[in-house]
Every structure is written in C-alpha cells, then in structure tokens.
C-alpha cells in the first residue's frame, strides 16, 4: 500500500514470478483466501496441518449474531474448494523450509503419512467399522470417541480415512491390520512414509488460526479436575446437533440437562498472570450466543454470565447482547469469579463472586463454561520463524502500519486470527484482502498455471428418445449389505426409457469412472442416473463423467440410496430395498424429462465505479487500478480523504495524514483512476458486468455516463453532533473529533485545563442508535494518552459503560490506567450530569456521576469535557440504497449479503461495500475491507465473460400476465417487468436458480430449469407408484 517501492516492484519486475499461491492453514480464512486467489486466475496450494480442512469454524454450532448454523454455511465452501481444479488441498502437512523471495518462493512441506491412499479411498467408512481401537474424537473436543482409522468428521473434505499412528495397533506393535482386507479398494497402505514436497509459489498467505487458551494453566478454574467445568469450544460441541450428545444439552458428568449454567469470561484473556494482556475480541459475543442457544434448548434454564466489560462492538452485536440480557433467567453480572468447590454428590460447581464491589456471593451451578481466549500457539511461532516473518509480543503476526494484511516479509501475507483475535466476518474480509494483495503481486503471471479442463464437444441429444443408463453403487458394502442392489438393478431395467442398468462396487473409483465414460458412449446413453451417495458431494464428480462422455452435465440425475437409505435403515433390509427402488424410479422418471442446460455468459465492462473517496474508496480504487482496471472514483466532497482528514494519529501512534496524503497522491497520479469530486450518482441501472450510471459532476452539474462492470459502495460515516451534555452551548464541551483538532492545532487551550472528563457512548447504544460505534473507546484512550503526554499533571476521567478496547487495543487501555487515567463506569439509566457552576469567580463544568463500587454520587469539576459521539451513517445512504436497489440495515448502514461469509458483498451480484458504509470501524479494518471488496470485484472483472447459473428461471411470455408476483419474491432483483410488453423478464446473470418465483407464479408461466413443475410432479407420481 503506502509501501511504494513494493508496488513499483510489482509493476516492473515480471521475470521469474510464479503464478501460484500457497495458503497455509485451511480454516475459514484460508479457505476464503484460496477460493479468491483461484478465482483471480492463480494456482493454489491449500495446506493444513490437520487431516481435513475447516479449522475451528467447522466445530462451532451456530454463529453470532444471526445464529446461522456454522456447518451449513461452511460446508458448501469445502465443496467449492475440493471441486475447483486449481486448488490442491494438502492435508497433514507442515512447512519445513522456504527459499527464494517475493514472486518466486520454494516452499518445502513435510506431509505426514495418512496410511490411506488418497487416490483409492472413496470415504466409504467401512474400515472404521472393523477397527478395534477407540480413540478420543478431537473434532468433538475429546467428548466422544471414534475409531483409530476414521474420517475426521462427517462433512470432512477430503472425505477420506486417516489412521492415527500414535494409537494404531499395527503402527505401534505390528499387530492387527484388520482394516486392510476390509477395504475393497485396497486403499490402506501401512508402507506410507513421511513425504517431502517442494512447491514453487509466487506468494504465501498465512492463516494458521489460533488455539483456545488451555485453562489447565490456571488451577483456580478446576478444569479437567471438575467434570462439569468445560471450555467454550467443548460447549460448542455439546450444543451442536452433530456433537457428542446429538444436540441434547446435557452435562458431561451424568448426561443430565443442566438447569443452571455459568459462563466465566476472560479466561486467558486480559490477564497479566498468564501473560495474555490482550482481549480475545470474540468471547463476549460467543458466550452471548451460547446463552441464547442454551435458552432455546431449555427456556427455563438459568444463565449467569460473569464478565468484565461486555464487548459487543461489531455489526448487530449490541442488539444481540440486549436480546440475551432481556431473556428471563439470564443475568449478566460484572464480576470476576473463582471456583470454590465441587459438590461431591451432585458434582455441581460452586462459584464465588463479588457483586456491587463489596458483597461476596456463592452460587451453585450445574455446569460452568469457561470463555477461553484465542491464543497464537507455539506452532504459529514456529511457522513464523520458518517463514522469517515477525510476530508481536503476543505471538500474533506483525504488519506494517495501515496494511494489516502484509507481513514483515514481502510476498507473504497474513489473515484471520493469526493477525489478531477477530471474528469470522473480519477473518473472511482479511482473507479476501490477502487474496487481493497476492493477486496484485503476481499480476503478470495470472492465468499461467491454471488449468481448464478440456472436454469433448457435446453431443446434441435433443429430439432423441431417452436412453437412460442406471449405475447403482454398492459403496463397498455400505449400500450393498442393506439394500439388495441386484434387485434394484433389476427394477431399474424394467423402467420406461432405461436401456442399461448395472451394479458398481464403487461408482466413484477411478476405474469405474473410466468405464462409465465408455459405457455412455458405447450404448449411446443420453440420460444418466447414478444411484449412490449424496449429490451434494458427488454430483460434480459424475457431471464430470458426463462431460467426458460428450454429454451435457445436466442430463444427470442422482438417487441417494446411501445417506438417505442404506445407512439409515440398517435393520430393515426389505424396506430399504423397496425404498431404493422407489428412489431410483423417481430419478429415472425425472431423468426422462431432463434437458441439456447451458450457462449464459455475459460480457464484462472492465471498469469499476467506486462511490466515496475516503480511505476505503481510495484503497479499493488502487487495488483495482494497479491490476489494470479502469476506475471511476466519485466523491461528494471537494476533496478526497473523507472523515480521516480530521484525525491525525491512530491509537498506535501512526500518522494518518501521511498515509492519507500518500494515498491521495497515488490515486491522483494513477492514469487508470478518474477522480470526480463534488459528484453524485443520479441514475443507476444494469447488472453485474454491465452497469451504467449517470453521475452529476461539480457545481455546474455536468452529467456524465459511466459504463462499469462492478460497483463499490464506500460512502463512509459521520460523527454525530450530540444533542446533550451542553454540546453546542458551551465551547468547553467537544466531541472526539473536535478534540483531535484542538490537539493538532491549538495545544495552548490545555494550559488552563487541569481536569478533563470523557463521556463515552454519547448517542450510541441508546434508543436512537441501538448499536455500538466501535471506535470511540479506543479513540478516547488515544486522546487521553496524548493529553497525558502534552500535560502529565492533568486529571483525566473517562466515564464509560463498557470499555470496548478489543484485541490488542486492550494494552493501551491498561497503559492509560497505569498513567493514572481514572475510569468510572456508569449505568445507562443513571447517566452523568453536567452543570455550569460559578465558583470563586471561575466558571466550571460540574460533572456528577454515580461511582459504582461505592454507590455514591461523585462530583468532578472539569475544565473541558469530551463526548464520544456516535458514528452515524450519512443521510444519503437511503436514496443511494433505493437507487442501487441494495438494502440498508435497521441502523441505515448498508446490509451485506451474509453477515458471516459474505461481509463485503451485496446480495445483488457485482455490487460491493467497504469501510464505514458497512458499519463503524477502524482505519486498518477499513483498509482490509477495501482490499477485500476490491478482491471480490476483481474476480468478476478479470473474467472474459460472466457465467450465470444454468438452472435458472425462464418466463414463458405466452402465459405471463405481468402481475409482478414473481418480482416480489426474488431477493436478487433478477426479475423485472418489461414495461412495453407487460411481461416479466428474468435476468439470467442475476438469477441464482432458487425457484421461489417459479413456485409463486399463479399462472405457471415460469419454468424452473432442472426443477421444473413437470419434473417434480413426475417425481411425486413415481414416488407413489409402487
């Protein structure tokens, strides 16, 4: 970014760079980075130390603040990774060494043996049934057991078995090997040894994540000694429907549902005794989530959260916290708790904590959850050392100022919790940003190492009578020992249209697939039914088979006779066989009606419109322009810079104006960026790849037409003007930004200032703005520290509700306290009061506030008062949202497509957001988000054409009355009424194929391809035909 020599290198040096990127760590950050890099035209090596991808997020039950099921939103990404031809997943591997430099690294990996041949294993799981050794299930946080040879968890990718050599009888004592003959594919291989892999890449993205703090380090929590004290991650597994208790909320000691649960916050965070002074940033919210979920399990449950400041600083968090707080039986208590004892009979846990500062209380709980912090472990330190990148005192990755994604070594980027404790959306944002930086670095090598599969030309089967081939898979014995496969094959042979039906041992094995391709060709099949496992994982595999056999991939239909039949009706062979026949018949019947489908492709205008010329808008402009994209950057003010123009330094002491001026200069100098100030969008139309806008430029109001492929909304936010505390009435009362200006330009004003009072949450977390403005606590600390620097003798009071200095900002909070800044907590129902009083000829601002520990009113005579005013969205967000047809949230910030996994995308393709337009945030966070938005935009812009979905909706104009019902049901704005002809038209570039409009049309005028009414009715009929 501002590191200009770095950039010039990117632009000039092209020799010897490698168009591949390695991503170390395959949690949600690594996965997102890998996908974005692959979509940007590079080869990706996605490396994880464990046997499967997914990281910690795959272990979570739900995610805050939407309570989205974690696996529901994550597992589609697993499949996206595993089916992308340009992503190689390397599991059970760690880095051994690295040579070379940015653009051309050689990374040496050590891959532990899996003892299972990845090529041969189909993941059928039969081996595990015969393995005699039970081991602790780490996916379930050791609360359950699984076999020594196992698939790590049900949705694991790669879905292949692995042997734990530390517990395998053969590996340890050369006995057993029972598993070997059970594998019909001969995949188990005890001859495997550790492998060394040398991989050439141009860049590395480091995303190794975190380890939860181990509470055994602090004996006072009784962890592992007391059965009913669990960590928050263990509790996630307990809550999870796929967890050790199948989603029953029970406690470990006796399997009974707890009536009363306590959460202890800040375990291993904000704690000098374990040397973790930082705040882990997510625990307040995940505990709140766990409270809400526990209450869903048992509405009568009592929940007590023993906490320090509640840090509900993110988008939607404050409302979530308020929701939990208001639930009956939920108590948030501001106190540090210790464990007294365990009741020997009930094994209940007794906690002791202090309330109101003085009173000590003991309370008994059925279960205690330790909200453990996020640590960067020894492995991360080792990794950093191998890569020669610097880490901070806490073991997290260090980055240059204003560029959180860069590391101390060129060409290596970091994202996710390895950078700092953060939640999922921030991790995903950084991951996309990291992809963007890697992509910039390797710009010229784009496309050099990616492969596109080449298929034979498709045979046109339209008009042919259906010739259906049915392939029924035994899945080793998984299907065959329950379902009478020969009977199913026999049944299939008798069905209308079926010309070939055959049993396969493993339909997905390499041999079987090759054979299937030949069979399709030989028998001139034009529809294929695969009766095997779930289409969710294997549809891509068999679609590939069809393409290899010159058939359109949509002429495939699945019958799930494994997950939906043999595995769930094991004791009922007759019924299972009948059901399998029904399922095959349903699929064959539908297959008869399948038609070839094609993705429609659209040209892309390689230009971006970026609305808002603050830091976020400028950063995203540069990311795109540096990679050759034409950018129109429009700003409503006279100058670029936005709100940041008013702030001189960050909390960490970095100079914002220097950074800003560098940015502005670079933006102005870049020939691909066309800047228009005093400019607004007045008209907006089109769709992804093909937008056209009209903007009104300058005072003269010149209208300019802009054609662009993507749009980024970076309209920023503003500091509100307080309506209370004498603001605007008394010049000594100012906002944080006002104070910034005084510090910058008018230090003399502090001469007579002996007492300064900061009041937090002015206009935030109230009825008008029921959200937290995120930055003000740190902003106040920054100004307090600066004041102490200017005038050490000044008395500073900070009146706060919760100090929300999350992450490493906590260290500055501590520093301020160490320097004598006095922090007084106030309650929202008992806010501070300010009066002007005359005393001994001097006018004073008298602040009265209740001191919470003493419970008494405290009077502070202040010379100056600083109000931490709310960050608010610009009023114009409303009109912009209507023009762009993108939604705002209830607070008028722009609303993303998905709070967790699509934090910079709108539901409408091709429109993105970044910076404070999304929600209040710090500059480094805005930078990361801007890079992420640009990355997402870029993955669209580099395509020669954008391909829509194949299974889209299509309006039959002969039946459409133009009633607009369909239009109302489409969340993607893909349907519009064509005014002249009075009929609805589906924009196939925007349609996602959900079929909601198809279902809604009262005239039956919309065809839902691949799921047509005719096809579904045929399935229904076939299901009931037995």
């Amino acid at each position, binding site marked *: 970014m501002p590191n200009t020599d770095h950039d010039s290198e990117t632009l000039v040096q092209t020799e010897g760079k490698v168009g591949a990127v390695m991503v170390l760590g395959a949690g949600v950050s690594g996965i997102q980075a890998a996908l974005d890099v692959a979509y940007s035209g590079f080869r990706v090596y996605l490396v994880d130390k464990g046997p499967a991808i997914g990281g910690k997020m795959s272990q979570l039950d739900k995610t805050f603040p939407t309570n989205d099921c974690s696996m529901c939103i994550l597992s589609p990404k697993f499949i996206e990774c595993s089916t992308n031809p340009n992503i190689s997943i390397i599991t059970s591997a760690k880095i051994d060494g690295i040579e070379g430099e940015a653009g051309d690294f050689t990374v040496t990996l050590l891959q532990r043996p899996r003892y299972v041949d990845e090529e041969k294993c189909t993941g059928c799981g039969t081996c595990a049934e015969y393995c005699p050794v039970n081991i602790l299930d780490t996916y379930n946080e050791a609360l359950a057991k699984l076999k020594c040879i196992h698939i790590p968890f049900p949705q694991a990718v790669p879905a292949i078995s692995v042997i734990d050599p530390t517990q395998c009888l053969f590996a340890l004592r050369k006995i057993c090997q029972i598993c070997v003959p059970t594998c019909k594919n001969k995949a188990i291989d005890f001859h495997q040894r550790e492998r060394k892999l040398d991989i050439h890449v141009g860049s590395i993205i480091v995303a190794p994540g975190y380890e939860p703090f181990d509470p055994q380090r602090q004996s006072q929590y009784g962890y592992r000694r007391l059965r009913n004290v669990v960590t928050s991650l263990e509790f996630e597994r307990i809550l999870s429907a796929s967890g050790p208790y199948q989603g029953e909320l029970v406690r470990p000691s006796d399997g009974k549902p707890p009536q009363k649960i306590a959460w202890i916050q800040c375990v291993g965070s904000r704690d000098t005794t374990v040397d973790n002074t930082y705040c882990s940033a997510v625990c307040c919210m995940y505990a709140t989530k766990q409270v809400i979920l526990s209450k869903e399990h048992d509405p009568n449950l009592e929940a007590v959260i023993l906490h320090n400041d509640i840090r509900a600083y993110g988008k939607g968090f404050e409302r979530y916290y308020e929701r939990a707080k208001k639930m009956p039986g939920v108590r948030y208590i501001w106190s540090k708790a210790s464990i007294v004892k365990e009741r020997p009979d009930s094994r209940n846990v007794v906690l002791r904590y202090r309330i109101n500062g003085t009173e000590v209380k003991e309370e008994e709980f059925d279960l205690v959850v330790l909200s453990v912090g996020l640590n960067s472990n020894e492995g991360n330190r080792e990794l950093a050392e191998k890569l020669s990148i610097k880490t901070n005192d806490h073991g997290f990755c260090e980055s240059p100022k204003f560029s959180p994604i860069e590391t101390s070594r060129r060409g290596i980027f970091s994202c996710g919790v390895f950078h700092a404790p953060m939640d999922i959306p921030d991790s995903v944002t950084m991951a996309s940003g990291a992809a963007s930086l890697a992509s910039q670095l390797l710009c010229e090598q784009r496309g050099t190492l990616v492969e596109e599969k080449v298929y034979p030309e498709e045979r046109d089967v339209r008009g042919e009578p259906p010739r259906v081939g049915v392939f029924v898979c035994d899945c080793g014995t998984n299907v065959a020992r329950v379902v009478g496969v020969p009977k199913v094959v026999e049944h299939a042979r008798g069905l209308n249209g079926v010309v070939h039906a055959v049993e396969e041992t493993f339909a997905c094995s390499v041999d079987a697939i090759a054979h299937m391709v030949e069979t399709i060709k030989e028998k001139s099949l034009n529809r294929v039914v695969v009766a095997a496992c779930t289409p969710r994982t294997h549809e891509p595999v068999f679609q590939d088979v069809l393409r290899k056999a010159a058939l359109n991939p949509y002429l495939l239909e699945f019958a799930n006779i494994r997950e939906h039949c043999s595995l769930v009706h094991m004791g009922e062979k007759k019924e299972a066989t009948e059901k399998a026949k029904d399922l095959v018949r349903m699929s064959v019947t539908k297959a008869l009606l399948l038609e070839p489908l094609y993705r429609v492709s659209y040209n892309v205008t390689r230009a971006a419109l970026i609305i808002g010329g603050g830091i976020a808008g400028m950063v995203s402009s540069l990311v795109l322009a540096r990679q050759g994209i034409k950018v129109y950057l429009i700003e409503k003010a006279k100058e670029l810079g936005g709100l940041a123009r008013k702030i001189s330094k960050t909390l960490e002491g970095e100079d914002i104006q220097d950074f800003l001026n560098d940015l502005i200069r670079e933006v102005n100098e870049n020939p691909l960026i066309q800047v228009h100030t005093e400019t607004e969008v007045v008209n907006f139309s089109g769709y992804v790849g093909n937008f056209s806008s009209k903007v009104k430029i300058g005072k003269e109001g010149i209208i300019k037409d802009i054609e662009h492929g993507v749009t980024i909304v970076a309209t920023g936010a503003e500091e509100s003007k307080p309506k209370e505390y004498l603001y605007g009435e008394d010049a000594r009362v100012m906002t944080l930004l006002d104070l910034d200006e005084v510090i910058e330009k008018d230090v003399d004003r502090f001469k007579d200032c002996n007492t300064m009072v900061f009041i937090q949450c002015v206009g935030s977390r109230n009825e008008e703005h029921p959200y937290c403005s995120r930055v003000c606590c740190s902003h106040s600390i920054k100004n307090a520290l600066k004041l102490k620097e200017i005038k050490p003798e000044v008395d500073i009071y900070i009146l706060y509700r919760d100090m929300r200095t999350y992450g490493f900002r906590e260290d500055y909070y501590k520093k301020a306290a160490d320097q004598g800044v006095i922090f007084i907590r106030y309650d929202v129902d008992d806010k501070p009061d300010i009066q002007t009083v005359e005393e001994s000829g001097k006018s004073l601002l008298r602040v009265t506030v209740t001191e919470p520990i003493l419970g008494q009113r405290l009077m502070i005579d202040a010379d100056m008062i600083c109000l931490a005013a709310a960050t608010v969205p610009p009023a114009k967000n409303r009109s912009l949202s209507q023009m762009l047809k993108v939604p705002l949230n209830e607070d008028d910030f722009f609303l993303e497509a998905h709070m967790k996994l699509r934090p910079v995308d709108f539901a409408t393709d091709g429109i993105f957001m970044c910076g404070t337009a999304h929600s209040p945030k710090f500059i480094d966070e805005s930078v990361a988000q801007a890079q992420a938005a640009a990355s997402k935009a870029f993955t669209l812009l580099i395509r020669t054409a954008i391909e829509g979905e194949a299974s889209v909706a299509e309006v039959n104009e002969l*039946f459409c009355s133009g009633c*607009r*019902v369909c239009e*109302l*049901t489409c969340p993607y704005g893909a349907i519009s009424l064509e005014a002249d002809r009075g009929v609805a038209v589906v924009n196939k570039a925007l349609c996602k194929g959900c079929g909601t409009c198809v279902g*809604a049309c009262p*005239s039956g005028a919309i065809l839902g391809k691949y799921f047509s009414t005719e096809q579904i009715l045929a399935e229904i009929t076939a299901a009931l035909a037995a």
Partner: protein
Amino acid sequence: MDKLKLALYWASSCGGCDIATLAIGEKILEVAETAEIVFWPVAMDFKYKDVERMPDKRIDACLFNGAIRTSEDEHMAKMLRTKSKIMVAYGSCAYEGCIPGLANFFSLKSILERVYEETPSTDNPGKVYPQTRVQMPEGDLEIPELKNMVKTLAQTVDVDYFVPGCPPEEKTTWLALEALLNGKLPERRSVISHSSKALCEECSLVREGRKVKKFYRPYEVIPDPEKCLLEQGLLCYGVATRGGCGAMCPQAGMPCTGCYGAVEGVIDQGVHFLTALGSIIDSTDPVEIKQIVDGIVDPAGTFYRYSLPVSLFRRAKSV
C-alpha cells in the same frame, strides 16, 4: 341455408347466465337472423319431451349453463349431449361448478339439516324433509334428487367448449356466439375468452411491485383507485384468474373474485392464488407472517369460490 339450431338450457344456476345471453344487446338480432332457437326453457315454451323427440344431433349447438347438482340436471345434460352437435359449458357453473359448487364443502346431509332445521327462520318441528317421491291423492309426485357431489358439465358429459364467467361478459358471450354462427370454431375443448393469460394483463391499475403487510376485506378500506388492489392488501384474484372480461371489477374498485377460472394450463385455480398470496407477504418474521395470513377470512371459500368442483380434491372431506 338452414339456420343454426340453437338450444339454451339452465341446470343448477341462478339465471344470470340466461340474462347474460341477452346482454349482447342489438346483436341478438344478428343471432335471430342466422339461428333458430329450438329450446330455451327460461324464455320460450318448450317441453322436455320436445327435445326427447328430436333425432340425435338435431341441435347444432347447446349453450348449457348451471352446475350438475340434481338428477334432473344430469338427465338433461345427457339428453342434450345426445341431441347436440356442439356442447358448450356456458358460464362458470357449467364450466367449473361456481357458487353451487361451494356445496361440496359440506355433505348433503348437513346442508339439508341446515336448511330444513337449523336456520333461524325455519320452524319444522316435525322434521319434514323433501322426498324424491311423494304419494299424493292425485298420484305419485316425483321431484329430482339432490346429489351429494356438485359436478361440472364436463364431469357429467363430454363438453366441446367452455365459456367462463359468472356470468360471462357480453364480449365473451359474443365471441362464443360469433364463432358458432360463423362456424369458425377454435380447437375443441378450449376455453373461449379474449385472453388466456391472467387478468392483470388487461387491468389498468398501476402495480408498483409492493408486498402486502395486511390483508383487508373490501369494506375495510377505501383503496386508491389508480393502484393495484392486491398491492393495497385487497384479495384481488386477478393474478390467478383468466382475463377476457376487461377487468371491470378491479377498475371500479372491487377486487376480482376469480369468476373466469384458472388461466390456461393451470390445474386448481385456488391453490395457485393461495401460493401467490403466500408469496407476497411483507415480513421476514414467521410469527408475523402467520398473523398476516390469519387476516384472510374463509380462505378456502375465497380461493375456491368458483372452482371447487374442478379443484384437485373436488370436495371437502366434510361431515
């Protein structure tokens, strides 16, 4: 050239369809010129036996209105089918059962109990019920038997054309008559209307693409006369009803009630209107959505007002 021999008959109906045939105004003269009416009980003095005496296919075309609810309806439908070259189900009752068809929400027994015992104005201490056969001094009297299931004409005999509407609009009637008189007939078994699409196509009210927060009955609101009634929360059936009538009701501020039946190709008009309504509710809160839905009074009666006998289930599993 012989004049076209035309029969008109009313089965279980209100008489509105017969009146509707006259609504064509002076065009009736054109009809009189080219056609000869051979049977029209409501307007001219013919006896059933006159029809019985006719040779088969003597009648060129029969406009049959009314649902098939009694043994007499059924008998006449079969007889007229035999005597007619072309059988036209004229009007909603004959076409899809219409208001008489709503009887299919109840059993015959419960209807009779209601009518002959329970209504407030009934005084029937002896619980006297009509009988199909009664002995009187003058001889045996026979009145038609009321059936448990109301059927459409097509569910009773083979029908060549359908004319929708309760009653059919003048222009629809003329479209059918013109075709018959000129012999320029459309494909057999088709529905004769100026439109095969839903009514919205011909409605001039402005649709803004708005979801519905609350449903109203017509007396509860005064709608904006320029805007789409459905978007204003009125249960306007136009989205799921065949057009051709000219959308006079909605344009006069009264929501369409669906009398032209399902649009071309749709089976079960009611469930399609239901689906459309369920799809345009302006809420993402399941509890609120259910509350909004609860604002629709008598949904089945509303959705199947005209089409219960041609719906998938044809009748309720009523007591």
